[in-house]
């Protein structure tokens, strides 16, 4: 089977990989690049566990082909902290106990960061609707929403 040679940027690093046409970006990240922080919960774009950004756009990596990543810049959970400094969202999730099993957490953090980049002062309702594509079965979302609102507050310096 002919494999495609793809060059892209992942969390700021140049990467190259080979993939089959039907391999998704999620499979490439996890199986070829060994970046297993991005999770598969459904494979059909319904749970958001595989959320990453491609050229700044929030997407489900299970609905993107690896070959489509050619020349693109991809951000995953592994690139969210800078050195020893956690992103404020990561810190607030810990402080607010906004995670339990944690399988949905990487996707929710990536989605929440993308929200706060566009809207630094979201309402509770805006947070809930923005995160509607990220299923969490443990928390009932209560502490997740609190953590995002608190992180927004901190990032605004309010």
């Amino acid at each position, binding site marked *: 089977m002919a494999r*495609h040679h793809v060059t892209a940027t992942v969390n700021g690093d140049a990467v190259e990989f080979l993939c*089959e*046409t*039907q391999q*998704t970006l999620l499979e490439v990240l996890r199986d070829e690049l060994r970046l297993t922080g991005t999770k598969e919960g459904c*494979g*059909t*774009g*319904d749970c*958001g566990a595989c*959320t990453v950004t*491609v050229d700044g*756009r*929030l*997407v*489900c990596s*299970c*609905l*993107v*082909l690896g*070959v*489509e990543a050619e020349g693109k810049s991809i951000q995953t959970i592994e690139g969210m902290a800078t050195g020893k400094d956690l992103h404020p969202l990561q810190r607030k999730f810990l402080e607010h106990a906004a995670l339990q099993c944690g399988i949905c957490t990487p996707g929710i953090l990536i*989605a929440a960061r*993308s929200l706060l980049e566009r809207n630094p002062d979201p309402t509770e309702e805006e947070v809930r*609707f*923005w995160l*509607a*594509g*990220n299923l969490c079965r443990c928390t009932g979302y209560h502490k997740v929403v609190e953590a995002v609102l608190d992180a927004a507050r901190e990032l605004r310096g309010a």
Partner: protein
Amino acid sequence: MRYEAPKTVAAAVALLSGVKGQARVLAGGTDLLIQMRAGRIEPELLVDIKGIPEMTSIVAEDGGFRVGAAVTCMELVEHTAFARAWPGVTDGVRLIGSIQVKGRATMGGNLCNASPAADSVPAMMAAGAVARIVGPKGMRDAPVENIPTGPGRTSLARDEIVISFLLPRRAPRSGDAYLRFTPRTEMDIAVVGAGVNLTLGDEGLCTQARVALGAVAEHAMLVPDAAAMLIGTSVDTAALDRLAAAASAACRPIDDKRGTKAFRIKVAGVIARRAAEIALQRAGRQG
């Protein structure tokens, strides 16, 4: 499985008409990849059209907008001028899937996937959107309502592509709206969808109206009988009652896991009425 990413419409059409076996256009891929993963289709060729400029841009055209068929839903939702002119179409696009899905999904895909429940399609039908189609025989324009012919079926030839949509210039005091009913607030497929587009005259009477319904028949459809109930009226309670009745009367739904016939027929009227109320309010706001 071959993957091609042509840079021109001509090249894309040539690829599609050239291939013997099954070929698929890859736009957002939010439906295509799921069908491939489930093994429902095994195309020989994927034609990724996101590298084609006229299919991925939003440009002004005779006071209206020409929207590339491969423009992502998020790009369109974030286009403030478009949202001001066509808030109802924006409503429909905004309701497609999650933020993540909208980051990939396109109006062209939403139309050509031909799901009876596609959210942007009734909104575009109500808006009078015209699709521009290119094939080996050249280019043609067709109103959106002429494209879906059944679940997963369209009037397009196998080597034709929808490249863009024209949303025409707005008359003054016009407003449109799209509403759908789903059990959840998000992440759901419309059980019923309704798009309403209307224009008010000087005396506040409705001079033009278009009403379209989704998920209540084998494909999304215009309902002229429902629109007729608004034209010439001040869109008052009586007119809205008649609109709701006409909308329900036009339904020919099925029972499925997402809703029953009886439920869809009843709720189609309710949703059409609520959409009309929003459209009216938006039209009123415009000078």
